[in-house]
């Protein structure tokens, strides 16, 4: 029963305390909703979970061993979808997704790129240079990475903005499929994807007046 959890996480960004002593736990097959007003640190928490950011104190554990012990292993277990789509206009749709698949996994699962594009209904555009894609198509191409290669933990930062309604349906189906085969998802979104599992309300952790006394308070 793999689980990904964070204990007493504190994050200070340029002198401002984003959140302090935050705990969360995601176990297999669960979705964690990050709720909270803008600027309450949803994106920061997701980047912290992905390992891009380091917490000022507190620890992130995967089956209660610290993720920073073996970062390479942890990175191979994570898919991170941020605000920006990481798509090169000069490359075609297929080349874009092929590159990100190669970056994480060996290429033996060639067929999975076609299925991933089919899942996100981009298969007819595979030879189109990415500069002609609309914002929604770019976001779907970015999301197609999720199902192209398997990674147990999905970290999705506002995946639904610039997506039309049936794309949102495609995404929620992909998430529930991922849950079925034992995946974990942490998602920050304002769209209700009727996948309510457990909700982490970030606003509880931001207005704690007592800043940590440590040297990082400055």
């Amino acid at each position, binding site marked *: 029963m793999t689980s990904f959890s964070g204990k007493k996480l504190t994050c200070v960004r340029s002198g401002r305390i984003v959140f302090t002593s935050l705990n969360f736990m995601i176990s297999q097959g669960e979705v964690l909703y990050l709720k909270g007003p803008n600027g309450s640190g949803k994106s920061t928490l997701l*980047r912290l979970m*992905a*390992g*891009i*950011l*380091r917490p000022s104190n507190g620890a992130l554990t995967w089956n209660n061993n610290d993720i920073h012990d073996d970062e*390479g292993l942890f*990175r*191979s277990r*994570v898919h*991170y979808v*941020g*605000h*920006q*789509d*990481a*798509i*090169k206009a*000069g*490359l075609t749709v297929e*080349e874009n997704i092929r*590159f*990100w698949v*190669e*970056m*994480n*996994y*060996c*290429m033996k699962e060639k067929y999975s790129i076609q299925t991933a594009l089919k899942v996100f209904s981009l298969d007819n555009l595979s030879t189109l240079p990415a500069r002609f894609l609309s914002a929604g198509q770019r976001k779907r191409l970015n999301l197609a990475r999720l199902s192209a290669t398997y990674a147990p933990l999905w970290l999705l930062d506002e995946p639904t903005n610039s997506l039309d309604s049936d794309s949102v349906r495609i995404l929620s189906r992909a998430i529930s499929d991922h849950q079925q085969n034992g995946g974990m998802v942490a998602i920050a979104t304002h769209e209700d994807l009727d996948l309510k599992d457990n909700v982490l309300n970030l606003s509880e952790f931001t207005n704690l007046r007592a800043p940590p006394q440590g040297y990082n308070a400055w």
Partner: protein
Amino acid sequence: MPGKPLQVFISVIRRELLLAIRHGADSCMIVSFFLIVVILFLLGVGPEPGILSRISAGIIWVSALLSVMLSMDRLFQPDYEDGSLDLLILSSLPLELIVLAKIFSHWLTTGFPLIIISPLLALFLNMGTPGYSTLLIALVLGTPTLSLVGAIGAALILGARRSGVLLSVLILPLFIPIMIFGVSAVDAALTNVSSKPPLLMLGALLLTALVLCPWASAAALRQAAE
């Protein structure tokens, strides 16, 4: 099971070269800048062959330096702007090797064309014939070091205001040793003194840069993504 590292390394290089070919204009721009700077020096100093041949090595090296430095900020800036930097940090290949791959492909698209065109410019500046071979060897050893050291500056200025000018203030002092040994190698060849010592020094600088620069650039990229 993360991808085999060599495959991932090659796929980064392939993507960079693919992008460079798709936007073919960039490397031509660099080479034309290199030509123009040399011609500007020439017009400034005057066509008098005596003077030209003595300062030809210096002119070529300074122009090569400026061209490499000019092309540096396109190394990480596109990835920083479109969000690829986060995914590169999260890829299975360590960031240091990804940076090395990017620097190698950057050298292929900018340093290499400079080496190819430099004999023509040596001809313009009527450099002595013994100098040609040493100039090529020195540039082959020197331009990768320029790309490596320049990559640190390119990673440091991500997200800064006025990054173009800032890059030159940061990197040019670090380029000075490379230029000094490059020029002294060619001068030694012209005054038929053995040019082995400066070339060996260039080789030493290249090896140290090969080890230290990817590590420093990766550290700079990681803190840029924070």
